[in-house]
């Protein structure tokens, strides 16, 4: 039991990442408010970024700046962090684009709720 808890604590990052991923996915799929869907996507993105950065972490590793004075020093893997910088840029552009679409939808329909929009659309189709 004790080993299990220690194991759990050592892999906290991964567990948190998966929990966030599920929370985000749940938010996207269940909420009908479009803004909440975008927030859910952002939570999912954060979770994947956390997961990716955690892969690069090395226990007792220092930041990856080569220090010629101290040989045998352990460094954290810098590649995932560098990749995630790109990932954050992508996430921001997706958020910006989806928010602009939501603004246009709000102007057209007067609501941000997907269910209400769908109800309005089906009324139009029946006429």
């Amino acid at each position, binding site marked *: 039991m004790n080993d299990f808890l220690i194991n759990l604590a050592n892999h906290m990052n991964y567990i948190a990442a998966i929990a966030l*991923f599920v929370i985000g996915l749940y938010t996207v799929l269940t909420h009908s408010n*479009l803004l909440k869907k975008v927030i859910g996507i952002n939570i999912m993105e954060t979770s*994947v970024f956390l997961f*990716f950065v955690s892969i690069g972490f090395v226990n007792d590793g220092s930041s990856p700046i080569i220090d010629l004075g101290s040989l045998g020093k352990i460094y954290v893997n810098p590649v995932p962090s560098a990749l995630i910088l*790109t990932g954050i840029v992508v996430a921001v552009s997706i958020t910006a*684009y989806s928010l602009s679409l939501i603004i246009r939808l709000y102007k057209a329909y007067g609501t941000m709720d997907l269910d209400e929009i769908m109800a309005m*659309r089906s009324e139009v189709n029946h006429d």
Partner: protein
Amino acid sequence: MIKHIPILVQVALLSMAVLIPLLRGNKAAKSKGITVALLFISSVFLLILIRDVRDNGAFVYNFGNYESYIGIQYSVNIFSAFMSFFVITLALIIMIFSTKDIDHEISRQSISQYYTLVLILLFSMVGMIFTNDLFNMYVFMEILSLTSCAIISVKSKKENYLAALRYLVLNTIGSLSVLLGIALLYMVSGHLNMSLMGQSISLIWQLYPTNILIATGFMLVGFAIKAAVFPMHIWLPDAHSNAPTPSSALLSSLVVKIYVFAVYKILFDVLGKDIVVGLGIPGVIAVFAASGMLFGSIFAIGQKDIKRMLAYSSVAQIGYIFLGLSLMTEAGLAAGLFHVVSHGLMKTALFLSAGSIIYYRNKRDIRQLDGIGVEMPVTMVVFAIAAMGMIGIPGTNGFMSKLYLSFAVLGAGQPLLLGVILLSSYLNAVYYLPIIISAFLKEPKSKNITMQVEVLPWPMLLALVTVGILCLLTGFYPKLVMDIVTQAAKIFLSA
């Protein structure tokens, strides 16, 4: 010089996309001219690249001369050269069509923006075909999903905004699950380069089977959402039917195929055939592919809007491609890639002719198409050729791809899937034949119509006739494409 062609084509596409907003004067006309000329030049250069790869063999291109384990790498082989040539050439035909059609679909101010978006879209597609680096592929994929949503929402109608937003949300979920899969694979292999990753995974996969299985699951689900494999297709009908006609053609015939190529790369370059078979993935893909082939067609039967029907038909056709993939044999992979090409041509022909009908007569409802073949003979002949291809009537490229797929299915010893192919062809006939019959054989509503060639603008007619001829050409001479895709399938299986 020749080894720089992939990146030069990409740089040209991207820089022109950035230059178009800076134009002065008649922006719309200038951007159309630039796009068509640039795509023509690019396709010529890619043709030179295909010749070179055929004669001198495949090569890799390292960016900035960094070693492959640290830098980004392009893998240029017969598959990537031919498929990027196919993408650019088909986009050229669609863009020639769009020069006249787009004026009717979107407002005048956004025309030059539209061409910017299309050029960035093509840039990312070419990048995804050539790249040999997983994270680079993710970045191109995000550019592709943003621009493919943007070419839907560029038509400023509220339906388009909603369709684009739904597409964007599902696309993002797909991208994120692909990224999570990439992270899991990076965790076990320590590489992002596909070839190096493939080498290390083939050594260690028995140590981490769960990790690799979960990673493959996430990636396949992500790509399946983006490629509209059957249960994940819900975004596709809205997105493809509301978009302007050139966008519909681009999205349906090219964009979804790019994700199929990504699946090919993941399954064969990164994981390798033995691991994929060992993890039992082909059976799962076959089930989804077969159900897509049937249900996509069944949904299409109920549609009244012609573009919506074509969109559902795409769901069924994606099933054919994944069915070829799921066989894991050389014939199956080649049949899948052949269907990528033939479906690209057929769907372009269908969407462009549907777009011409909307342009010329403003009719979208299938029940209003009585006698339209008399009013618009050229358009409807092209439509009929492509629709016959979809059904699988000999002489068209659709027949050849069904034939190759059927032989591949029998060669893999799964005769049950042959029944699925036949049933799906029958269902295709159920919704395509009534349109052809009512267009050519039924009396038009207004009696005083005489048979004459429709007065469409010449670029639209040129694009329609070209793509119709290409459908027949690949039907009568399938070897032109089949020889190349067989070599591509060999590359994938030997990796």
